[in-house]
């Protein structure tokens, strides 16, 4: 059973239909890249899965070791309570194009803030506060180390380069141990010479079988790390399959047309 199943997902803003019935599934440990021109609905799709936008209709189901969890189903969950949405979101992590680090916290503070707040909600928090805090801190340091930023833990975001900031943002998303990690054009806001370090980190996560959805314009990268590629256009999935097929031998004329823009 797939870890994520999206069925006939639609989203309109007023009369504008941005997603016109998106269906796909993702297996645990797989990396899925979503490509397509701007305005094709890629980002909206990610935002719907993270409930930054409420889908208009369709179904989103997550299936983990803890069991099946229907996050959204237009048949019976038209409206979700705020706490239900918060619970849904924890299945996903999201790394933004513009990093969105919290400027008043250090790199480590950014990574540990949400885990700390969650620890406070635990029933045994009072007795174990010190131990929990230490665990969270150690885990945060380990994550920063994994991102190659152990020596930057005490730096504030404005003291870090764009590539370093984005790696902190990845560590921050990983700190909550999401089932699926989403990237929304993670390198688009970076200088070309800084994209490499971020892509290397994401590649490292793919090698460790992290389940990921990556919206990207980096075709070579998508080709190398993905198990699946989806090409979107005008709110529809035009083509979907292994990278060798979609990126090297696309079946659809629209896909070929889009990819031609990258080979030149």
């Amino acid at each position, binding site marked *: 059973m797939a870890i994520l199943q999206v069925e006939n997902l639609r989203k309109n803003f007023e009369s504008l239909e941005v997603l016109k019935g998106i269906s796909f599934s993702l297996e645990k440990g797989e990396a899925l890249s979503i490509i397509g021109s701007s305005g094709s609905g890629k980002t909206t799709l990610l935002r719907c899965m*993270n*409930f*930054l936008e409420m889908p208009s209709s369709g179904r989103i189901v997550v299936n983990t070791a803890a069991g099946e969890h229907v996050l959204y189903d237009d048949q019976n969950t038209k409206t979700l309570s*705020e706490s239900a949405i*918060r*619970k849904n*979101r*924890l299945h*996903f*992590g*999201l790394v*933004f194009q*513009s990093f*969105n*680090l*919290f*400027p*008043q916290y250090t790199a480590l503070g950014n990574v540990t*803030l*949400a885990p700390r*707040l*969650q620890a406070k909600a635990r029933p045994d928090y009072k007795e174990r506060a010190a131990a929990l805090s230490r665990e969270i801190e150690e885990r945060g340091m380990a994550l920063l180390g994994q991102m190659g930023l152990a020596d930057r833990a005490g730096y*504030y*975001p*404005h003291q870090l380069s764009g590539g370093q900031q984005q790696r902190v943002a990845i560590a*921050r*998303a990983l700190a*909550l141990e999401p089932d699926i990690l989403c990237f929304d054009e993670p390198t688009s806001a970076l200088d070309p010479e800084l994209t490499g370090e971020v892509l290397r980190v994401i590649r490292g996560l793919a090698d460790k079988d992290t389940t990921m959805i990556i919206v990207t314009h980096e075709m070579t990268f998508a080709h190398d790390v993905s198990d699946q590629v989806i090409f979107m256009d005008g709110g529809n999935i035009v083509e979907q399959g292994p990278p060798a097929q979609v990126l090297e031998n696309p079946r659809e004329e629209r896909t070929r047309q889009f990819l031609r823009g990258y080979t030149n």
Partner: protein
Amino acid sequence: MFAQQFPIVFHSLNVGFVQTLKLFAVTLIGAIPLGLVIAFGSMSRFRPLSILTRTFVWIIRGTPLMLQLIIIYYGPGLMGNNWWGGGEVGRFLASAIAFIINYACYFSEIYRGGIQGVPIGQNEAGQVLGMTKGQIFFRVTLLQMIKRIVPPMSNEIITLVKDTSLARIISLQEVIWAGQSFLKGSQGISGIIWPLFFTGLYYLLFSGILTILLGGLEKRLNYFR
């Protein structure tokens, strides 16, 4: 002459300045939180509430504080129910209410700018990390908002120091009133104008201290951008 007058005048002005400081402090204590309530009202997605709040802010910011003081102090009496009484306590209460409402409206606009100036991405980052609305406000946006509003708030606070003198219009016995009393005659002294000029030093000194304190706060928030 001067050597005999000075201690008497100095004491009177000090008493008046204490009243000035009280009005200043009470206004800040009341207007800082009330301004936040008004800011949320004017940003409300519930249209009738936001229209009502914005209209209220327009009226308060669009008319002189002096007029508002007069209406609040004399209004009830003209309608046949002078609940302020004739004493200094009533005058102080009326002044405090007028100042709190007036400054809360100005503060609310500064807050609104501060809140809306925090990038939406900060809010979204908090959301995808499973934080509640309260956690996002207190842990993420509040400090960024404070950093943004400190310079314009400092400006308003310095203005408030001097605006407190407007309460003179309803005879609140603040420092200008105290200085002026020696013109007309008080405690056996009359016809001297230097006490009135001397009050300027109180304002200068106090706004100088505030400038240093608020500048210090601004600097302390410089550790992030």
